[in-house]
């Protein structure tokens, strides 16, 4: 039996989420192969070949794959799918985009966003914004799975797999890439950060996020936001943490001026330690916070930054 993991990457380096998918694949069992689909992505394949437990790496390159077009990924994955008992990808916007297409073509049901592997055919996934966990047994011949990266350990290095080049099928003429607009930041990636500090509607405006950024820079943390803050235009939408944004599970999550709606909690309640700073002591965020501070954030956050300096940050 063999399991295929489709790598997440930016054509330069392997995303940590891929390492989480490899860990999930190990729990399913069998030989683990990684497919790197991209453009000028040899360095990604080399990195994937070193991941512990990986037996083989396949590299396919084309322009459409470089832009992660779902139609191109669908044909590529279908062309190599034969012989695999399970196909996994991280539950990123890329994985969510192409994996259901592959599943439909193979006539199997996708198992989205799994948080645990019980056995080779049984998995746990959250439903209703994380308010329930369903255990499902797949009766399909091939298991098509997207993996929630935050709930699996990241597989380390230690492997020495071979890298084979595979042909990318011709790209579909029906879709084409036009442009990309990525948020630039020197801070760690939201999904992988050990500390996340997020702001909500209480921040008042976009400029006020500067006080969170100062704390973030001190701690080496990522900055997140609630949907309210994104919709109000305070920060770009890729900052959003929640059911419809990113799911994070850092060591420390600091929620500032966030009330704690169900949809926001869905994206952060698996954090190890949650801190809430809010002036409304009735805010639902306090029901999940390990440490709550009822205070005006415009006083508390700068003070927090000062206190951090005192302990050596």
């Amino acid at each position, binding site marked *: 039996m063999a399991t295929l993991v489709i790598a997440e990457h930016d054509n330069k380096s392997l995303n940590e989420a891929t390492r989480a998918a490899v860990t999930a694949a190990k729990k399913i069992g069998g030989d683990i192969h990684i497919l790197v689909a991209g453009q000028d992505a040899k360095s990604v394949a080399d990195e994937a070949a070193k991941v512990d437990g990986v037996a083989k790496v396949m590299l396919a390159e084309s322009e459409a794959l470089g832009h992660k*077009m779902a*139609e191109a990924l669908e044909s590529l994955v279908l062309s190599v799918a034969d012989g695999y008992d399970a196909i996994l990808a991280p539950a990123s*916007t*890329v994985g*969510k*985009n*192409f*994996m*259901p*297409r592959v*599943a*439909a073509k193979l006539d*199997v*049901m*996708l198992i*989205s*966003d799994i948080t645990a592997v019980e056995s080779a055919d049984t998995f746990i996934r*959250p*439903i*209703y*914004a994380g*308010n*329930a*966990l*369903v*255990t*499902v*047994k*797949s*009766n*399909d011949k091939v298991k098509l799975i997207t993996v929630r990266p935050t709930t699996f350990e990241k597989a380390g290095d230690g492997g020495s797999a071979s890298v084979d080049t595979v042909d990318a099928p011709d790209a*579909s*003429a*029906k*879709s084409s*890439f*036009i442009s*990309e*607009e*990525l948020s630039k930041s020197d801070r760690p990636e939201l999904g992988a950060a050990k500390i996340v500090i997020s702001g909500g509607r209480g921040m008042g405006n976009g400029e006020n996020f500067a006080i969170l950024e100062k704390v973030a820079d001190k701690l080496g943390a990522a900055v997140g936001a609630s949907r309210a803050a994104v*919709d109000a235009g305070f920060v770009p*939408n*890729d900052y959003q943490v929640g059911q*419809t944004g*990113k799911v994070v599970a850092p060591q*420390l999550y600091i929620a500032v001026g966030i009330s704690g709606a169900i949809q926001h909690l869905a994206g952060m309640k698996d954090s190890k*330690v*949650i*801190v809430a700073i809010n002036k409304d*002591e009735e805010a639902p965020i*306090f029901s*999940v916070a*390990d*440490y*709550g*501070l*009822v205070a005006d954030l415009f006083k508390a956050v700068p003070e*927090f930054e000062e*206190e951090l300096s005192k*302990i050596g940050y």
Partner: protein
Amino acid sequence: MKILVPVKRVVDYNVKVRVKPDQSGVDLANVKMSMNPFCEIAVEEAIRMKEKGLAEEIVVVSIGPAGAQETIRTALAMGADRGIHVTTDATVEPLAVAKILAKIAGEEKPEIIILGKQAIDDDANATGQMLAALLGWPQGTFASKVEKDGDALKVTREIDGGLQTVSIALPAIVTTDLRLNEPRYASLPNIMKAKRKPIDAKTPDDYGVDLTARLEVIKVAEPPKRKGGVKVESVAELVSKLKNEAGVL
């Protein structure tokens, strides 16, 4: 041009659901149901396209129990033209939904199908993509902007790290993200008018689709509860607890 909009009836997004004590599922008895928020955005986008003169007809389809008819009426009251209700009491997985929708697309021949990016109950985020694959159409998922561009759609998509813009040839599938638009409220006269708009009653058998679940539900459990936390009095106390008690600083 015709636009097809599939809509789903789900637990209202404000409801905190409870898991049944026997772990067979989530308790949906006497719980408020509404149109899935992402589906509302899909209906709104279709109506805006019609208002711009890009589409002549909007057909809304829902697959589900008798109550799903209300969801279709809501979409008709917002401005859709007619409905198709595929009645079933079974839990229908995205793959089976996509297969039924593919059959309906074959009959109705829409040029655009707009769906929500995910239902807030199963959180699968799969139906639109599966339908696109079954039809062999291109897709613009997680759309925050859709523009007609000749025989194609220019779709701005929300991706990890920012935005991506793609061009997809018609016929095409679009799935909506939250920021695509702000859905309108149906006015009372429009709600009354919607009662006279036609809804075709269908069953899954009409489309010859097997609804057998591929994923057998073994159990539905509550997520682990977080332990009650403490309130601290000052920022200094907070920092000291994070450093000394929690060990995360």
